[in-house]
């Protein structure tokens, strides 16, 4: 997915001479073509995320459309005050692209597990959050996001699901014989998809995480008595938090169950499946949980 989106950014930079690309020394075999083709509008600021966002803010002052790139686990936390003060407070729209979500970097340890990032960003005014859960959603996505009416945090999972999806902000895979539905997004969609394909379980797969299209989502959720929210992100400020608030505000009554990690993990695995099992968000655990309920 990351190659596709960077290719699109490269294409847009050919057309729009006002796009400036910044990296914090990330993107090997990825960003070089931008550096070669647009040396005046490409800058590697080094491994310095606070300065990355500060410099971006300065470039926006000069009316550039700024794209910043690094891996997701470095793009939010270290420079959060810069995002708050130098971007959100000033209503300066930026496109932040972070690669890796959830347990994509399973073996690299908890510093590289991205399970508490977008929840902070959604709390900043003037920010939208995207997490494409299928490759079709990427079609023309860069062009759309570079309109930059708001700041954008685009977190890109290391999956390439092409068996579902479209360019809609969410994909409803429905089976109304069920009384419950699973809401999910990101890399874990790959883990959960057999529940729909084999068992016919209803799924609502998100590509855009914030803000949510309340009217149409509530229209779907009202058909279900129980909602399972499966995410590789803490529930306290993740999708579970967003959906619960939405339901409370709409006075819609449904039981909502969070299936999410509750803490950081010091144990690692060679791939994300091990971390899913460790946190009981793997396919078998979810199946068992649904059956018990």
């Amino acid at each position: 997915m990351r190659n596709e989106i960077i290719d699109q950014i490269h294409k847009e930079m050919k057309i729009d001479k006002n796009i400036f690309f910044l990296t914090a020394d990330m993107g090997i075999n990825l960003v070089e073509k931008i550096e070669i083709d647009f040396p005046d509008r490409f800058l590697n600021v080094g491994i310095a995320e606070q300065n990355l966002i500060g410099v971006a803010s300065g470039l926006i002052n000069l009316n550039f459309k700024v794209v910043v790139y690094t891996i997701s686990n470095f793009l939010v936390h270290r420079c959060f005050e810069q995002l708050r003060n130098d971007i959100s407070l000033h209503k300066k729209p930026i496109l932040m692209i972070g690669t890796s979500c959830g347990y994509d970097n399973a073996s690299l340890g908890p510093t590289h597990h991205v399970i508490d990032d977008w929840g902070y960003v959604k709390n900043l005014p003037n920010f939208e959050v995207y997490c494409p859960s299928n490759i079709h959603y990427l079609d023309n996505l860069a062009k759309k996001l570079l309109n930059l009416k708001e700041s954008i945090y685009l977190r890109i999972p290391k999956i390439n699901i092409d068996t579902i999806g479209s360019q809609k902000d969410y994909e409803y895979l429905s089976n109304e014989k069920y009384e419950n539905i699973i809401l999910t997004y990101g890399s874990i969609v790959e883990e959960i998809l057999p529940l729909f394909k084999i068992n016919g379980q209803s799924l609502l797969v998100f590509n855009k995480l914030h803000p949510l299209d309340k009217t149409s989502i509530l229209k779907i959720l009202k058909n279900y008595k129980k909602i399972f929210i499966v995410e590789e992100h803490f529930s306290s400020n993740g999708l579970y938090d967003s959906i619960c608030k939405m339901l409370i505000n709409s006075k819609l009554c449904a039981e909502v169950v969070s299936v999410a990690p509750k803490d950081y993990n010091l144990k690692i695995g060679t791939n994300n499946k091990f971390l899913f099992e460790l946190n009981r968000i793997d396919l078998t655990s979810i199946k068992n949980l649904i059956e018990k309920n």
Partner: protein
Amino acid sequence: MKSLDVDTKKIRNRIVDLIYKSGASHLGSSLSLIEILSTIYLLVDLNKIKDHAPDRSRVFISKGHGACGTYSVMNYFGLIDDIELNTYHKNNSYLSGHVSHAVSCVEHSTGALGHGISVCLGTAIGIKTKKFQSNPLSLVVCGDGELQEGSVWETLMLAGHLKLNNFIVFIDYNKISSIKSTNEVVNLEPLEDKFLSFGFETKNVDGHNIKEIYDAVTNRAEHKPLAVICNTIKGKGVSFAENEPVWHYRPLNKELYIKAKDDLK
């Protein structure tokens, strides 16, 4: 030859009046930056700043707590009118105790330290990319205590690496951090060597001497960013506030206001 005459006593009186009337703090920090910021406004094209021209020089006050001093200097140079200035620190005003971009001709809100300098570097890069013929500058005033922030050094490292000669950092080196002597908290010395090792040209000047600061900038090197280390006195001009850390926080009572005004006659 451009006149460098600035009635700094008038500006200091204004600061003392505003701080007394509003019950605000940050007297010391405001009084130390007067000559630095005045020099900056002498160096740039003020009309372009007033007009928000795309090729204006960009001025940043990274030590955002110097707001009262900043607004008072801006008022002296015609960037803020008297009516607006007199709302400082009052209900419904945009003139907050830290520098705010809600005020016209202020590029960026600051207050959390170590931010303005990075944004200023971004404008320096942007200005170079846009290739404006008027060669505008990006200028930033930093506090000495602010240099304890790690983000400052991220910025300095990149600026030196890029050899940006339009990026000018003024250090308001008043030697007092938040609650005590800066170098007692974390020693900055040898400060000049630090900037030199980051690829800057450095000038060490009397930060209350406009001509010295002005000459430091106009005689700068062609292929390096410049750091002007401005040796200043926190609370300059008000005897009881000079070099006293408490005047970072304390508002003026009537008795001390009268004394301050007496000092500034």
